[in-house]
């Protein structure tokens, strides 16, 4: 496991698979969009507004998953004193932030025709907004501080604190009475979504995961080259 995420191996892997990932993304997004916008059925209550789900839900899942990985990597980095974990975490942040923004904006657009409002201070939505702020603080912590050590310390603290918000987002719809509906897709229990809607949802999720991987690999390569640039100065 640690061998794969070794900078040399990850850099080499990135150069080899980026093009394959890019073409996979183009194919997946083309199939996903045609399914989501055309072939999937409309909902009997929400009508065509339900199609927003195909971008909103995968974005929310990816932003949650990404922050969870970032938090865990920050904990491992703190325990094992491995700086590569922090570089990986840093490179994951931008796509995670973008997807949290997409989840918030598309959720707001979906809220208008279904709830009659763009925004509500509902527990799930507020917790998602908080996640967006955690992402923003994390990214800014790498930008605004001068010393490398300070950047690493502050970003680790933000990622570890932000991880507390993840179960709150996940279970907010069960713990409190909220405007946001409860989960229709469950791993442990039976999902309440029909397969005709599940298929495009899965395709769009895979497409977004592939997109996140492309962004991560490009960011990671840029970070490693940045370090190598410093190395050339010292030669």
């Amino acid at each position: 496991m640690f061998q794969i995420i070794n900078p040399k191996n990850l850099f080499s892997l990135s150069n080899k698979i980026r093009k394959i990932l890019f073409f996979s993304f183009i194919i997946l997004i083309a199939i996903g969009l045609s399914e989501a916008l055309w072939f999937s059925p409309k909902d009997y209550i929400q009508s065509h507004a339900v199609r927003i789900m195909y971008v909103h839900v995968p974005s929310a899942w990816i932003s949650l998953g990404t922050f969870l990985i970032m938090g865990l990597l920050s904990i491992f980095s703190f325990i094992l004193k491995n700086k590569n974990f922090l570089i990986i975490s840093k490179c994951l942040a931008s796509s995670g932030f973008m997807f949290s923004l997409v989840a918030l904006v598309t959720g707001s657009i979906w809220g208008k025709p279904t709830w009659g409002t763009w925004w509500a201070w509902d527990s799930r939505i507020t917790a998602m907004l908080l996640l967006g702020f955690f992402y923003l603080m994390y990214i800014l912590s790498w930008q605004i501080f001068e010393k490398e050590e300070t950047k690493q310390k502050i970003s680790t603290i933000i990622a570890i604190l932000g991880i507390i918000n993840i179960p709150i987002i996940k279970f907010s719809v069960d713990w409190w009475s909220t405007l946001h509906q409860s989960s229709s897709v469950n791993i442990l229990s039976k999902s309440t979504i029909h397969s005709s809607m599940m298929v495009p949802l899965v395709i769009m999720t895979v497409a977004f995961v592939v997109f996140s991987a492309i962004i991560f690999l490009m960011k990671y390569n840029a970070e490693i080259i940045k370090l190598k640039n410093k190395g050339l100065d010292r030669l």
Partner: protein
Amino acid sequence: MIEKLFSMEGYGIFVWSAFIFTLFCCCILYLVTKIQLKKQENKFFVKFGKLAEDKIKIAKKQKINKEILVNKPDYNF
């Protein structure tokens, strides 16, 4: 048929704006990341080109340096 796809019984404005916003964000993030990567690569190529012969030999021994130089179109191995 096309009109039906765009109007979506009055929900088209919401559905299309959500999808366009998502794809727009993806495009922007991809372009910004690509530019950042190219910028770092170009910086590396410039610095590498200015190195003395003996230092180039040392730098070339490193696997990652070799991998970066593969992306340089006119680089002679």
